[in-house]
């Protein structure tokens, strides 16, 4: 079963615009991670945010975490065509045996 649910399921933007996607989850977590996947193959780890953190940055990426609402957001600023990919949130929780539980993903298309 999938714990995280991403919203929107798909997003189409112009190069240079910002892209925001959200993730909601159900149980208490240890951490939440965001991954990118190109062409349905290997996933690339983007950011890990722990349950006691509220915001993290990495380059053009900004992740927020609101444990009271059980939600997270990923913001990609100044998007590029190369950012076209599927983005997944994944949670790690003791209740789930400390393994990654993925959401269904947001498919992002950045048009040049």
């Amino acid at each position, binding site marked *: 079963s*999938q714990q995280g649910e991403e919203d929107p399921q798909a997003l189409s933007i112009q190069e240079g615009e910002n892209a925001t996607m959200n993730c909601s989850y159900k149980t208490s977590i240890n951490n939440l*991670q965001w991954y990118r996947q190109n062409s*349905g*193959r*290997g996933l690339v*780890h983007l950011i890990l945010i722990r349950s006691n953190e509220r915001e993290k940055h990495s380059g053009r990426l900004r992740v927020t975490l609101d444990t009271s609402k059980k939600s997270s957001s990923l913001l990609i600023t100044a998007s590029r065509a190369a950012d076209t990919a599927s983005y997944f949130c994944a949670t790690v929780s003791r209740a789930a045996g400390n393994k990654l539980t993925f959401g*269904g*993903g947001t498919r992002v298309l950045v048009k040049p």
Partner: protein
Amino acid sequence: GAGVSQTPSNKVTEKGKYVELRCDPISGHTALYWYRQSLGQGPEFLIYFQGTGAADDSGLPNDRFFAVRPEGSVSTLKIQRTERGDSAVYLCASSFGPINEQFFGPGTRLTVL
């Protein structure tokens, strides 16, 4: 350094056949995971090894699926009597521990005809 590698990259088999999928984790990573991803879905957990032992196999869908990691490094996912519903991309990942960042391989695309 070398990342996680998986072989084969593609496997086409007939219904009822036996297949083995191999994963070579990053050297030094004690934790190894198998996931299955169907088209348009997120990866779904199958099994997690800590060292040589399966710490959590709760995601294996049925007893046709089995995985081993005999020396705590390379792992093999074995599927017996394959069914068309087993068609998916099988992803392997490794990490230093269960709550850390996981590094994924490129996956094996399994097609059961």
